[in-house]
Every structure is written in structure tokens, then in C-alpha cells.
């Protein structure tokens, strides 16, 4: 187990390093200059560049950047003058994380339950009904689902607020839009996985013991069915907790998702790099946690 985890940690560190480096150079390749502005004297522009260290040669910039990264410093934002990248993340991340986590917990619970039900009633009405829902969930991207839900629940029926952040009822619609894909995906993969396990020999053993179906499902089938589902969890957690640009800009939620797109279009170098590295570190951490969880669920992994 220790060897397994230390290997994963090494890969995680390498990932962060590659990510930081690649982001740094990619950002330098972006055409354009955030300080180029006819209304500001060239001298001031140069001063600004110097403040952000952009006047130094590239290798030096890189070393400074990596050094700061080790200290946990991500620098100042260019567009949001006077604010550090860390500040921005500290302010916006909790919002996205709260929404994402709420959405994800429900999505996982509902998705897995639906998947089990589908597999159990394979080829019967509940299976078809839930699979249609699941496939619709996958076929409706957030930019389609969002406006439709807003029109029906918010404008026509007036049962939920159309936009905003702060009250619990303002979270419902964005959480649905954010989570529907996960529900759908989990329903489908759980169904497939449960069905694959049904034909396994050890399920026959369990049935030969005279266990009632519910015990066969919960004690023997469920845990083994999770094995192929778990590895995707890390990416799922990271992607919902980092905030979705579409959902956040649609429902005017002050989360992190919007900064990802805005920072790039604004050529806000420190913010782009900071956000990307933050996302990467978070994703890698989540994957690590998931790997540990994986090892706990499937004892065979531990020896590998």
C-alpha cells in the first residue's frame, strides 16, 4: 500500500511540475500584450511591465515564477489591480466549491441508485424509463438546459429565483444544471458495471449460499461495481468544484469558473497561471485521494 501511494505521489508531483512549466510557456506564446494601450504613456507601460517582472529575460522569469510557486505566491492580477491571485481564489473558490460539492453529492447518490435500479430491472420499464432520463441528461448540455430551466421554473412558474447567490433556493437550479450530466453518466456506468458483475462467478457463489437478492446486491455486487467507477471520481470532483463558466455566468454566481475564461481573454498572465496551477494541484490531490479510496475498496490494488 505504501509503495502504491508513494508512486502515486511522485506522479502527482511530476504532473504539477509539468503543468506549471507548460502553462508558463504557453501563456508566453499567447499573442498580444495586456499593457499595450494608446492612452497610457509608454514610460508608464514599461513601469507596469517591470512591476510584473515581464522586462526580464524569459529563463529568469521562469525561475522567479517557479520559486514563487514553491512559496505559494501566485503574484498580483493584472486586470484586478492591487489584488493578489491568491486573494481572488480565496474569495471565489468557496462559492464554486459549495455549489459543486452540493451538486456532486446529490448527483452521485442519485446516479448510483438509478444505475443499480436499471441493472436490477434490466429490460423492464424502470430500466427504460431511467435510461431515457439518463441519456437525455447527457444529451442536454448546460448551455441548453440552463436557459430552459430558467424559463420554466424561474420566469413562467416563478418558484425559483432566476439568478443570484446567497440563499439556498438560489442554489437549486445551478446545482441541477451542474449535476445532471454527472447523474446521467453515473447511471449509465453504474448500470453497465452492475450488469458486468452479475455474470461473475462469485455472484453465483453468493446466490448458492441462499442469500436473498437484496443481500447479494448490496454485499457482493455493489462494492465490486464501484471498482470501475471510482477512478473517474477525481476528475468529476475537480471539474464541478472548480466551477463551471457556463453555469456561473448564466446564474450570475461569483465563483471561480468565470475567472478561467476571463483571465485568458484579458491576458491576465499571473491569474491564468495561478488558476491553472491551482486547478492542477487540486485535481492531482483529488486523484490521489481517489487512488487511496480505490485501494481500500479493491484490496487487489494494494499489492500491485
Amino acid at each position, binding site marked *: 500500500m505504501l509503495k502504491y501511494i508513494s508512486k502515486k505521489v511522485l*506522479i*502527482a508531483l511530476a504532473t504539477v511540475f509539468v503543468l506549471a512549466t507548460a502553462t508558463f510557456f*504557453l*501563456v508566453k506564446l499567447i499573442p498580444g500584450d495586456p499593457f499595450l494601450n494608446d492612452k497610457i504613456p509608454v514610460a508608464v507601460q514599461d513601469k507596469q511591465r517591470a512591476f510584473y517582472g515581464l522586462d526580464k529575460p524569459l529563463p529568469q522569469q521562469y525561475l522567479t515564477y517557479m520559486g514563487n510557486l514553491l512559496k505559494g505566491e501566485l503574484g498580483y492580477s493584472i486586470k484586478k489591480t492591487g489584488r493578489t491571485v491568491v486573494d481572488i481564489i480565496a474569495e471565489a473558490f468557496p462559492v464554486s466549491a459549495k455549489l459543486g460539492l452540493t451538486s456532486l453529492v446529490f448527483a452521485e447518490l442519485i446516479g448510483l441508485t438509478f444505475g443499480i435500479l436499471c441493472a436490477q430491472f434490466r429490460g423492464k420499464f424502470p430500466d427504460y424509463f431511467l435510461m431515457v432520463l439518463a*441519456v437525455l441528461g447527457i444529451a442536454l448540455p448546460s448551455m441548453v438546459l440552463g436557459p430552459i430551466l430558467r424559463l420554466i421554473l424561474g420566469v413562467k412558474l416563478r418558484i425559483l429565483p432566476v439568478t443570484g447567490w446567497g440563499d439556498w433556493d438560489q442554489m437549486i437550479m445551478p446545482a441541477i444544471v451542474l449535476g445532471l450530466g454527472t447523474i446521467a453518466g453515473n447511471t449509465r456506468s453504474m448500470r453497465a458495471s452492475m450488469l458486468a458483475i452479475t455474470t461473475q462467478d462469485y455472484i453465483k457463489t453468493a446466490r448458492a449460499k441462499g442469500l436473498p437478492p437484496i443481500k447479494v446486491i448490496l454485499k457482493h455486487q455493489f462494492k465490486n461495481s464501484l471498482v470501475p467507477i471510482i477512478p473517474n471520481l477525481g476528475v468529476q470532483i475537480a471539474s464541478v468544484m472548480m466551477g463551471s463558466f457556463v453555469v456561473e455566468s448564466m446564474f450570475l454566481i461569483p465563483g471561480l469558473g468565470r475567472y478561467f475564461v476571463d483571465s485568458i481573454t484579458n491576458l491576465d498572465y499571473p491569474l*491564468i497561471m495561478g488558476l491553472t496551477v491551482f486547478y492542477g494541484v487540486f485535481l492531482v490531490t483529488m486523484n490521489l485521494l481517489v487512488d487511496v479510496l480505490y485501494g481500500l475498496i479493491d484490496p487487489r490494488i494494494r499489492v500491485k
Partner: protein
Amino acid sequence: MNESEKMIFDANAFDPLPEGSLEQDQIVRKKTSYWGDVWRTFKKNKPAVISLWVMGLMVFFVVFGPMMNEFNYYSNDYSCTNQTPNMVHWFGTDNLGRDLWTRVWEGGRISLLIAIFATLIPEAIGMTIGGISGYIGGKLDMFIMRVIDVLMGIPSLIYMILLMIVLGKGNAMTLVIAISITGWMGSARSTRGLVLQLKTREFVVASETLGASPAWIIAKRLIPNTLGIRVVGITMSMPGVIFYEAFLSYIGLGVTPPSPSWGQLIKSAGEVFRYYPYQFIIPCVCVSITMLCLNLIGDGLRDALDPKLRS
């Protein structure tokens, strides 16, 4: 017993049968080829078959739709802006008076072309790398797998956006390249796994003993045998690519106007959704139906290709 005792036997009943007079290995079952079997199971899956037809229809309209009336997708006509669907403009017009029927199918061309290329290119890259990695094995395999492990840890959507900006946004080509660069790892991993399984099978070992070169074995023996499962992978990842295209267009990084794509149409109509819902709903329905059909076809193929699920 008693009955047989009473039976009257033919004179030659107990004479030995001449050698070979009874067919030893009689083949009673219908002969079924692998792909025949797959097709038979696939056909039984109604949603998948219907999806295949709907997809065919979709492709038909995407190819021929723009030619069905006299309008083109880029000419503005301020005399007839924001018209609801009518006899002249079958899907209505947008805020610049452009015909939506033509724009929707023209947009479909771009979206589907992007979907096809942005699925096949990373798939080809992944299969090649995965095939080499799995077949050659050893240190090279270790190295490639670690590289993939590292790349998988990189948030792909952000990288797609970054790459789009660096390569120059607003171009279908860059979209395909960006999606390809960030999306080949999954297919490489899956192919490698399959190749590792296949590598020890008799027909591969036989080719090796006959002196076939590794390149020949990968191309002729391993890749064809992984195709089945990868076909499912391809159909399953296509809807994802359509979503990426829509997403990138939504955040303003997709194809540049006046060229439409479904994502582009959804984005611009989303702003006026409350007033002109048809402008929004039509491209949405197209995207949703395409994603729906591709998913159902993928499901059908997977069930048909998985011998365990075959009845």
C-alpha cells in the same frame, strides 16, 4: 426393456456401420461471423437502430439542407429580421435577417465535421501510441504510461482554451487541434490494455514465430482486433466533442461569425431566448438529438460487441 425385447429387428440392424457413414462433427447451428453476430445483436436494440436512422437523416439534412432553398448563411436582410418560422424561411430568421434553415444545417456541417475529425484524430494518435507502448512493453511502455499519467492530471478544458488562444481562435482547424492534443490519452490507455491482452494470444504468437515485423503485427494483427472496442469508444466520445465545440463557441472561442456552428447559434440565440425561443430551441434540438443518437448507437454497439452481454 420389455418393449425392445419384443421388437423385431431388421436383418442388418446389428451389422456394423461402414466407417465414416455418420458425420462426426455435424454443424447444426447457423454459421455466424463475428461482425454478423454484432450486427444481429445490434439490430435487436431498437433505440440504437432508430438512432442510426435519425443520425442518417441528420447527415442528409446537413449535407443537402443548405441547398434546399435560395438563401445563404451569411447574407443579412434587414427587411425581415427575427421572423418566426414561415413558408419562406422554414426555421425563421435571426436578428440580421439571415435564414435559419440554412444556418442551422450549415452550422451542422461545421459541428459534425469538427466532431468527426476531433474524434478520429486523437483516436488515431492514441491507438498508435497505445499500440506501440503495449506491444513493445518494457521501459518504453513504463515511460509512455508515466507520461500519460502526468498528462491525465492536467485539466483538459483549460488547456483546450489556452491552446485555442495560442493557436489563434475562431478557426475550426485550431479547435480540432486543441481537442486532439488534449484528448488522446484515454484511447492510448485503452488500446494499450487491449494490446497487452492480445499480445499473448496464439494468433499473434504464431505471426511472431513466422518472423513478422513488429510494425506488421501491430498494424495487421493487434489494431484490427482492438477496433471493435475502440469503435464504441469513438461513438461515445463524439457527443463529448460536440459538447466541447458548443462550449468553446459559447465562451467565444469557437468558429468566428458569420460562419455558424451549433454552439455559435445556441450562444447567440440564448441571449434573446425569452423573446425568440425558436431561434434557441432549433439548434438545441439538433445538438441534443445528435448527442442522444450517438450515445444510443454507442450503447448498442457496446452491448453487441461485449460477448458477455450477448444472448
